[in-house]
C-alpha cells in the first residue's frame, strides 16, 4: 500500500504540470501581501513610523491573515481541490486510472496527498510573501528602516500549522464533492454556498457546526483575541471533521458502481 501510494503521488504530481494549480497557489499566496506592499506607496511618509513600531510583525500578520483566513484561503482551496480532482474528468482518464494495478485507497489517498501538499505550500508561500511585503519597502526606500524586531518565524509557522488544520474540512468536503459531481461548477457552487453560510453565521452560537468556518473562528480567537464559546479548539473540531469527511468520501468513491 505504501509503495502504491508513493507511486500514485509521484504520478499525480506530474499530472498537475502546466495546469492552473501552480498559478492558483502562487497567486492566492501573493494576493494580500502584494496589496499591502502596494499600499505602502500611498503613505511613504508614514512608513518610518510603521516600520519602527515594535509590534510591526504582529500588526502585519493580523492584517494579512484577515482576508486570507476568511475569504482567499477557502476560495483557493475550493478551486485547487476541484482542479486537481477533475483532471481525470477533463481528460476522460478515470477508466484508465482504475484499470491500473493499484488499490482504490491508493488512488484516493494519492490525490488527497497532492492537494494537501499544495495547500501546505500555499500557506507557506503566503508566509514568505508576508515577509517579502515587509522587507521590500525597506529595501526600496532609503528613509525606511528594516522592520523593528526579528521576523517571528517559529511562532508564525505554528500558526500556519493551526490554519492548515483549520481548513482541512474544506479540503476533504470539497474533495468528496469533486469526486461525486463530474462537473466543475457543482462542487464549486456547493462550496461557495457553504463558505457564504460560514461568513453569515460567524455571530451565531453554533457557528462551529459549519465546516468551512474554522479558519475564521481561529483567526478571530487568536489574532483578534475575541472570546468564543466552543466545545473544543477549532483545530480539534476541524481535525475530527476532516477524518469524518475523508472516510465518508472514500466509502462513496469506492462504492461507485461505474468507475469509468
Amino acid at each position, binding site marked *: 500500500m505504501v509503495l502504491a501510494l508513493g507511486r500514485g503521488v509521484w*504520478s499525480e504530481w506530474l499530472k498537475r504540470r502546466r*495546469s492552473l494549480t501552480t498559478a492558483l497557489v502562487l497567486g492566492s499566496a501573493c494576493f494580500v501581501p502584494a496589496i499591502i506592499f502596494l499600499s505602502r506607496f500611498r503613505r511613504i511618509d508614514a512608513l518610518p513610523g510603521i516600520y519602527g513600531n515594535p509590534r510591526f510583525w504582529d500588526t502585519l500578520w493580523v492584517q494579512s491573515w484577515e482576508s486570507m483566513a476568511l475569504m482567499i484561503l477557502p476560495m483557493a482551496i475550493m478551486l485547487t481541490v476541484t482542479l486537481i480532482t477533475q483532471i481525470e474528468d477533463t481528460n476522460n*482518464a478515470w*477508466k*484508465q486510472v482504475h*484499470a491500473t*494495478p493499484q488499490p482504490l485507497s491508493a488512488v484516493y489517498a494519492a490525490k488527497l496527498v497532492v492537494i494537501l501538499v499544495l495547500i501546505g505550500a500555499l500557506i507557506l508561500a503566503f508566509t514568505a510573501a508576508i515577509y517579502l511585503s515587509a522587507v521590500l519597502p525597506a529595501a526600496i526606500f532609503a528613509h525606511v528602516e528594516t522592520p523593528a524586531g526579528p521576523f517571528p518565524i517559529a511562532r508564525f509557522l505554528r500558526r500556519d500549522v493551526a490554519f492548515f488544520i483549520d481548513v482541512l474540512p474544506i479540503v476533504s468536503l470539497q474533495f468528496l464533492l469533486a469526486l461525486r459531481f463530474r462537473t466543475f461548477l457543482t462542487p464549486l457552487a456547493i462550496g461557495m454556498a457553504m463558505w457564504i453560510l460560514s461568513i453569515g453565521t460567524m455571530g451565531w452560537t453554533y457557528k462551529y457546526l459549519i465546516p468551512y468556518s474554522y479558519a475564521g473562528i481561529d483567526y478571530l480567537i487568536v489574532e483578534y483575541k475575541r472570546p468564543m464559546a466552543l466545545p473544543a479548539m477549532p483545530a480539534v473540531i476541524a481535525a475530527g471533521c476532516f477524518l469524518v469527511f475523508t472516510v465518508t468520501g472514500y466509502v462513496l468513491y469506492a462504492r461507485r458502481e*461505474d*468507475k469509468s
Partner: protein
Amino acid sequence: MAAIETESLTHHFGEQAVLRDVNLLVPDGAIYGFLGPNGAGKTTTLKLLLGLLRRQRGAIRIFGKPLERERQEILRRIGSSIESPSIYGQLTAVENLEVWRRIIGCPRVRIPAVLESVGLADTGRKRARQFSLGMKQRLSIAVALLHEPSLLILDEPTNGLDPQGILEMRTLFERLNRERGTTILVSSHILSEIERLVTHVGVIHRGTLRFQGPLDSLRERQHASTYTAVDTGDNTRALEVARQLGLGGRIENGRVLLRALARDEAGRLTAALSANAVTIYEVSTVRTDLERIFFELVGAD
C-alpha cells in the same frame, strides 16, 4: 487455458438489461475480435472485464483467476484502452506515458520503445491536446503497451485512424501476438476492419452472444451460404430443367438461384438449358461476404 472466461455474465443499467448470460471465451494466445453494432454491449463487457463496472451477476475469470479476488494481480498483466483515449491534454506524449509508468513501475526505456512502435516518436514537446484523434488513439495504445502486458483489451482501437494507421496497428498487433504471444481482445463494429487480424470471433447483439468461435467456423458459414445464380430468357423452364437434373433451386429477383454448383454440375446445367432452347444470359457464383454473415447474425431477431 482461456485468457478470459465469463460465465452467465449479466448486467443491467436500471431496468434495462444490457448483457444477458454472456459466456465469453478468449483462448490464450488468440486475437479475439469482439464484434457488434453500437450499443450491443461490447464496451459494457470490456468494462466488466477490467473491473470498471461492478459485476452484478455471473463470473469473470482472467488467466484462470477470479477477477474480484485477484484484481490487482490480474490488472498488472493487462493493457487496456476503453472508448475514447484517456490522454492528459496539457502533457506531452512522453509525460503522458511517464504518468502511467510511475504507477506501474516499468523501466523508463519502455517509453521511447512504445512511442516508436505506435509511430509517435517525433512528437517532441507538442502537447497532447494538439494531437489529432488518430494520434491520441495511438498514444492510448502506447499506454496499453507500456508494461508489456500478456493481455491487451482494446475497445475500437482503430477509431480515428486513417487507412495507413489501421494497417500499421494491425501489423503491430500481429507482431505482438506472434512474437510475444500476447492475447488480444479487440472490439469493433466493423467486421471488415478486423477480419484480417483476428483468429477468433465473438458476435454480440442486444446483450447476447450470437456467435463465438474460430474465424474459420465463421468462414464455413460463409461457404454454406454461397450459391449459384442463373439469369435466363425463361426462368420457369430453366428451373424445371435444373430440377430434372436434381439441382433443386428457386426463382428470386428474376434469377434462378441454386446451391453452389461444382464445375461439372454447372457444365451439365448450361448444356441442358441450351438443349431445351433456354437462352442463358449469365451464370454466376454469389459469395456471401463475412460482413453479410455478421449482419445476419445481428439481425436475426
